[in-house]
């Protein structure tokens, strides 16, 4: 009997997937709510298989109205044929996202049938030390933006003894924590969200492997409130995982005892900075902490804490399942393995592209993305979120990896790629970057708190044609102070978009009004 697949991902739902699923069910059809395949311009992408695990064919941009009229067939304009063979998917190399879009995210049998738990089983057969070594050997680096080697971070935590919470007596319960940073606030990024909605068990499995590796007993996922679907799906997955014996005491009949809870954010971008996140998890204002001490030594409630991004942790199960060597064979230089790129903004074919590091920005933008959605010429691409640099359309031959992007004046950040067509005003974008920093600065350090306010004022003066030379020099000076004097990346990286806009698009800063001084 044929089975229909309609994504339950928030992006698909935002284009009417729920109504499509209801229309199919109203016709008596069997519907599975899968994750999204990540070809978001096709959503809702409806698929059909002759049997539950058989090959699937698909229809893009389906509507409930069309299904009320008739079931889609292969003569339909929206028919895309065999989904796995579509170029966009066939050219990817999916490790983290291997099950996303294929399985029912909350079906534990589906998870296991598609390779789930293989990594955890392998890890439990190894010592914690050997797991840390495997992660080190894989070359996995932090996917939140900083790119710190995950294995070294894990080693530091593994070498600590568990500690009682700060302020408690030495005889109190001792802990180490695994904290997953799911505060995916960067505009143009949604890979954490889609992973948590499309394969939440993968994240939980990765956290459990981390707990075994470093000797942690409890985990938190700090998940932003702007993602209500991800909160609901991950929460449901945690309950199911407990029932399955994948979380809790004696996981998979081993000695490992570990449990996970979600903490929902409250609308603060800076809480994606790891120490601000710890403050928020402890119930306080999300003010950045000075380092040292490192969170790996004194983290959550003063105990040794692993803090990793969702994609970092979600890489671990496949590394343990398929081997560190196979993972490290992908990518180039010091950027090994795969990265989940997210194509966004003014783009014809936006979505998820997981592939080895080293693909060029141009391949992502043109071959996968198909250029701008508006059809107008591409003018700029912002890579790596609101703190990432703008690259002009002629600079896209840069390799997408940590060091090459830094050398090009950018950064990979969380892998977001946002396209702008030729209607963009880059001075307006520079102003927005400063203004965003005004809104979101935690206020602890002066360069960020005051600098951003002065930055907005100075850009306004330049755009109004007031003392342009002097104010441009002042803006550069201010950016220098913010870069070198800020406590964290919020103030430290805000100059990236500002200066890249100023340097590559100076004409946008020129006032249409003749300067009068």
């Amino acid at each position, binding site marked *: 009997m044929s089975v229909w697949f309609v994504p339950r991902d928030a992006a698909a739902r935002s284009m009417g997937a729920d109504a499509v699923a209801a229309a199919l069910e109203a016709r008596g059809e069997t519907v599975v709510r899968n994750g999204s395949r990540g070809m978001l311009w096709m959503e809702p992408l409806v698929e059909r298989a002759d049997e539950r695990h058989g090959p699937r064919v698909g229809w893009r941009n389906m509507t409930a109205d069309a299904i009320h009229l008739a079931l889609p067939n292969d003569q339909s304009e929206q028919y895309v044929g065999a989904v796995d063979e579509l170029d966009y998917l066939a050219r990817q190399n999916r490790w983290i996202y291997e099950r996303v879009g294929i399985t029912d995210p909350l079906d534990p049998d589906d998870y296991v049938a598609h390779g789930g738990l293989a990594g955890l089983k392998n890890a439990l057969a190894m010592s914690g030390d050997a797991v840390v070594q495997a992660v080190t050997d894989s070359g996995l680096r932090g996917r939140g933006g900083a790119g710190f080697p995950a294995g070294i971070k894990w080693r530091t935590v593994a070498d600590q003894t568990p500690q009682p919470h700060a302020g408690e007596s030495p005889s109190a319960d001792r802990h180490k924590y695994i904290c997953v940073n799911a505060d*995916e606030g960067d505009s143009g990024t*949604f890979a954490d969200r889609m992973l948590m909605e499309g394969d939440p068990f993968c994240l939980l499995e990765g956290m459990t492997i981390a707990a075994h590796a470093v000797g942690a007993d409890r985990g938190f996922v700090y998940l932003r409130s702007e993602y209500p679907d991800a909160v609901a799906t991950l929460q449901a997955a945690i309950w199911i995982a407990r029932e399955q014996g994948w979380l809790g005491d004696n996981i998979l009949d081993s000695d490992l005892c570990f449990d996970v809870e979600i903490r929902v954010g409250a609308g*603060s971008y800076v809480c994606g900075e790891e120490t601000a996140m710890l403050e928020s*998890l402890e119930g306080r204002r999300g003010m950045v902490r000075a380092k040292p001490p490192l969170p790996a030594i004194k983290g959550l409630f003063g105990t040794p804490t692993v803090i990793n991004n969702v994609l970092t942790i979600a890489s671990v199960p496949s590394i343990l399942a398929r081997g560190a060597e196979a993972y490290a064979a992908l990518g180039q230089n010091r950027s090994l393995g795969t990265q989940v790129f997210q194509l966004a903004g*003014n783009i014809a074919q*936006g979505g998820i592209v997981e592939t080895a590091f080293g693909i060029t920005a141009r391949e992502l933008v043109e071959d996968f993305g198909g250029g701008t959605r508006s059809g107008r010429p591409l003018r700029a691409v912002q890579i790596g979120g609101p703190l990432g640099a703008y690259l002009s359309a002629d600079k896209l031959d840069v390799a997408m990896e940590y060091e090459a992007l830094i050398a090009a004046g950018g950064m990979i950040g969380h892998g977001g790629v946002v396209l702008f067509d030729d209607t963009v005003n880059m001075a307006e974008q520079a102003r927005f970057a400063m203004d965003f920093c005004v809104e979101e600065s935690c206020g602890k350090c002066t360069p960020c708190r005051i600098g951003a306010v002065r930055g907005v004022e100075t850009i306004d003066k330049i755009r109004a044609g007031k003392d342009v030379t002097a104010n441009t020099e002042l803006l550069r000076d201010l950016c220098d102070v913010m870069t070198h004097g800020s406590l964290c990346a919020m103030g430290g990286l805000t100059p990236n978009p500002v200066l890249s806009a100023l340097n590559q698009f100076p004409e946008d800063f020129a006032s249409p009004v003749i300067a009068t001084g």
Partner: protein
Amino acid sequence: MSNAGYPQWHLDAAQTLIAPIVASEPGPVLLCLQAVQSHFGYVPGEAVSLIAEACNVSRADVHGVFTFYADLRDTPPPPIPVRLCAAEACQAVGGRQLKADWTALCQSDTALAALTGTDEPIFCLGNCALGPAAMVDGELLGCADINRLQSAVARAQAAGEGA
């Protein structure tokens, strides 16, 4: 029901709500504020004093946490909150114009403005390939325009009346 299906603020009910959090969680202040807001729709001044006392911290400490987070509010929310994404990926596909058009519409239609509130900007809803993104009473919209916003408001209104 005071607003949008939230129960009227009630001190004893709030106390019952936060007691288990204070008893079991280290660092409970933010969790208490969130619990009060998700139950009553907002955090009235009285709740700040209540949480301060329950957590054995100063009122200033709780106020400090309350004011830090953009989500937390001290007035009841509008019946059908409408929020438009103000971040870069949505700017790239006309987010600024949509915001201007929506604001103009609300200025000319006071009933709509009362229903949907003043749109507080939200930075990124994670729907960056299908912008402009918006959230209408908790429903995420992709490729938002004025028509889609208006029909989402109407849907939410119909759902509210049916409930």
